[in-house]
């Protein structure tokens, strides 16, 4: 189910909030069961057959986490919060190592099979064909990708790793853990929330009108970002990236349109998720911090999709040695992390190239003293240049395949043949309403306050603005067809 759909907004959400409100005063467990039920409906709406996979992942990690905590030698007796925290510096037993490995293998196995099985098989087939050892094949392996699998496997797996490392206490409550893994506001596209971040909230959280009102404001701003900005600029980006012919101007408008689309789409989703969390009493951390105001690529990655960046830092970059093993190793680690981060987004060489290109720039900036390669320029120019570089790197991320990405780059730099039909694309892009929405997107990106800041002090006029945004976005939504979030497919 998609947040920006009439089904969610006018049927699912009122039912979920009503049932939750009715049960949360009765018992925490009952209200969590309601959340699990509604989350199952939310998730199963896309394809009921994938619901068991979600709970398989949750069951394995719940079991492994509990086993690791109970198997800790010398751990104190459990209290009402469950087994004690595994001391971070204490040695782990072989069975604990097996348990954490089981969790990682099961989650990565599920992710690998569903997300990368077809990619791996087709890559092998292509290489075989290139070596004359077989044919590339038409349909090597076609596997339907379960919605949100990249998010929930990472989230669920992080729990077991945190318990093993002694960063989180294992929970004895299967209901609480299932609620954590399946919670619909952040189930399919994050933010990736670590168990340690919400464990306390699963036991006790605040519900009041202030928190709910801020949730409404967050949700309204997020919906407006998606429906009123991301979707219209997305239509412009789609026109360009699906065009067979493009002139230079159209190509640049197209690439900036996509930059705006992916930012407003994903940050809009994150705002809605945070808002829904607040309505249910949960506080989720910030996932975007005005990334296009960054003056370097390093800064960009501190501000973009923070929950994934943090996850990769804590569970991949630091275990690889981080920056502690010398400059070459640091650069290699950055490339590995970013390459795998790219692959996390999708089973395609385009994503790997996108990730590696960012890794290369991060390594270069690291070598340059953690500063932008264009550090000597004024602040405004550094921000502009960083935005342009990030935008150029979105090309392989958005393009259908590698040849399409190369064609798009050729169009950007005037190296491709321009057919007469390109005038149609240009005419659509240069229409006043198209230019106006791009200008609005730019203003919001570089001038508007962040949602966190804007909703901190909710005066009556701001509440009215939020409600107006909600009404306009909901009304516009009624005129649009299925418009999934970009990150739903990752």
């Amino acid at each position, binding site marked *: 189910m998609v947040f920006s759909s009439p089904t969610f907004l*006018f049927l699912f959400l009122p039912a979920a909030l009503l049932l939750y409100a009715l049960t949360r005063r009765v018992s925490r467990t009952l209200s969590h069961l309601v959340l699990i039920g509604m989350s199952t409906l939310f998730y199963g709406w896309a394809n009921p*057959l994938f619901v068991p996979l979600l709970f398989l992942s949750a069951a394995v990690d719940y079991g492994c986490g509990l086993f690791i905590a109970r198997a800790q030698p010398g751990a104190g007796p459990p209290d009402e919060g469950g087994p004690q925290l595994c001391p971070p510096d204490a040695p782990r037993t072989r069975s604990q190592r097996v348990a954490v490995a089981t969790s990682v293998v099961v989650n990565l196995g599920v992710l690998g099979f569903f997300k990368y099985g077809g990619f791996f098989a087709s890559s092998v087939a292509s290489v075989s064909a290139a070596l004359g050892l077989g044919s590339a094949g038409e349909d090597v392996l076609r596997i339907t990708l379960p919605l949100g699998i990249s998010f929930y496997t990472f989230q669920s797996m992080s729990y077991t790793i945190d318990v093993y490392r002694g960063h989180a206490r294992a929970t004895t409550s299967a209901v609480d853990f299932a609620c954590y893994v399946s919670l619909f506001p952040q189930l399919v596209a994050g933010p990736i929330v670590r168990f340690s971040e919400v464990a306390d909230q699963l036991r006790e959280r605040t519900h009041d009108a202030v928190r709910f009102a801020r949730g*409404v404001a967050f949700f309204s701003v997020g919906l407006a970002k998606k429906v009123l900005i991301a979707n219209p600029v997305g239509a412009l980006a789609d026109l360009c990236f699906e065009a067979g012919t493009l002139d230079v101007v159209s190509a640049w408008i197209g690439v900036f349109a996509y930059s705006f689309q992916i930012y407003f789409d994903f940050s809009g989703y994150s705002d809605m998720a945070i808002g829904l969390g607040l309505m249910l009493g949960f506080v989720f951390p910030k996932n975007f911090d005005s990334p296009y105001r960054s003056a370097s690529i390093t800064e960009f990655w501190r501000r973009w999709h923070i929950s994934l960046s943090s996850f990769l*830092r804590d569970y991949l970059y630091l275990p690889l040695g*981080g920056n502690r093993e010398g400059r070459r190793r640091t650069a290699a680690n950055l490339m590995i992390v970013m390459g795998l981060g790219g692959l996390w987004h999708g089973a395609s060489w385009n994503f790997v190239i996108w990730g590696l290109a960012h890794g290369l720039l991060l390594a270069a900036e690291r070598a340059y003293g953690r500063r932008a390669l264009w550090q000597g320029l004024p602040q405004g120019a550094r921000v502009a240049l960083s935005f342009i570089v990030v935008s150029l790197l979105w090309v392989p991320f958005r393009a259908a395949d590698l040849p399409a990405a190369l064609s798009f780059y050729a169009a950007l730099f005037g190296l491709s043949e321009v057919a007469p*039909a390109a005038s*149609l694309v240009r005419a659509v892009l240069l229409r006043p*309403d198209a230019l106006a929405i791009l200008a609005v997107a730019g203003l919001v990106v570089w001038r508007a306050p962040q949602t966190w800041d804007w909703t901190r002090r909710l005066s009556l006029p701001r509440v009215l603005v939020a*409600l107006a945004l*909600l009404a306009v976005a909901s009304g516009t939504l009624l005129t649009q067809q299925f418009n999934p979030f970009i990150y739903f497919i990752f």
Partner: protein
Amino acid sequence: MPTAPNLNLSREEQARREVGETDVAPGAAWLACGAFGLLLGLGVAFEIGAGDPAGLIPASLRAGGLPSECALRELDHAIETQSALATRLGRPIQAGLAALGQGNASVVNAGAGGLALRAELAHLTGPDFMDVERQRARELEAGDCSAPVHADPVAALADFAQQLREREIHLVVVPTPGKLATEPERLGAAGAGLANPGSERFQRALVEAGVDVFDPRPVLESLRESGPVFLERDSHWRPHAVEAVAAGLARHVAARLEGHPRSVFPRQREKARNVGDLAALLGARDSAESVELASLVLPGDAPAPVLLLGDSFSAIYSEREAFRRVFDPSLEWGADAGLPDQLAHALGVPVRRITRNAGGAAASRRALAVELSRGDPLAGVRVVVLQFAARELSQGSWDPVALPAAAPAASTPDAAPATSTPEAEPEGSLRVRGRIAARSTLPTPGTSPYAEAVFAVHVTGVRGVGARAAPGEIVVYLLGMQGQRLTPAARLPVGQEVHLVVEPWEAPGIQAAFGSLFRTELDDVSLLALPAYFGRVLP
């Protein structure tokens, strides 16, 4: 990314502190909560007010069992397009947005006269439809919830030409350019005669496969100098463009009709007025435009040496009912003045026509197969003209269609032996019960330029209700969409027991009222030989 934030607080602690600092007056907080609740309740309230919330549940979900991905997608879609909220609020909002110069998923709105189908824009600016990789990608993209896509138009057309050749009939293919291809200035673009990069290769491939092509582009280009070729707020051509293309097409095929007696069909001027399909898709119902037509006075049942298979470019100005607007029945595009009629005038011979609005890649060929299973529409035909919108080349499914041998007219209940006393029913009609064994799909309301649609159901275990005997299984056509809204019949699931009043599909009254409406057929072509009826569902 790998740089740790230079902060002492964790992200979660920062967020909690942030939320703890929320400053909102109690009144404003309660206003936000209350208004949010009201908005959320709007959908349910509207649906209950409309009186039929369960009506949104699609046929596939009513069958029971674990809902499939496709059934849920269908329900989502029904809520998006058919819910009371979408129809009562969504359409006025759409009209308001159109007035402000906004388009929608189907229409590009470039202001005065600048309406165009987004599908055509995508065709013209999109990748080469003849590219094999592109075709394969389209076939793979079709997904499990829709019918398989055949993306190769040349294979389908070459096969169709060969089947006709075996019957000593010549095929002429007419890929019809759309509004933007002919008049790109409607969108403020430069150029003329725009086409998808694959167009030339497509025509060459057809010629190499022995398929005759008539390209109307030069004719339409020559008309541009004297004024608009296409309607202002509609995706179709103007009557004078139809006449010019018909004249050019007649010159192209005239040699194939040598020896056939020629006649002169008189024409009479009449006017028609309608709201264009593009304007209707934007919800703008108050912008009718008028055209002057040269309608033919055609002979009754004269044998026709030419059969024209076409889409809405052929049906416009020819099939009155197919373009009549439900919200104002006086609005329509006239009759007997469309491409088949003007072609008959230019050739001086009768032209039989089978037209289906939309789906030009296969719909009219499929319709011919249906007609062949019930009679012989190819009798005496020397030339078949297959007209389709050029955008179908990159967006349509070029399904192979096997033409069956011509059959005698199918039996109707009137011909069946009587087993009991007939019950009083309208003349020629029959009340039956049976179970739906298969059904065809319907277009999505709001996205199809056509407000009405007929779909087909295969009914088995058919028994007459206190009346004459009925065949054991029949095909029944039902009105599935009316005024861009699905009818209750559209929601009948496979497996449902139904009670119907049916009349023979070929009955003149039925044909006049429903024969020219957009129609979808059953996938199983073998069912087309069954007796066919038009039906109405009884409670």
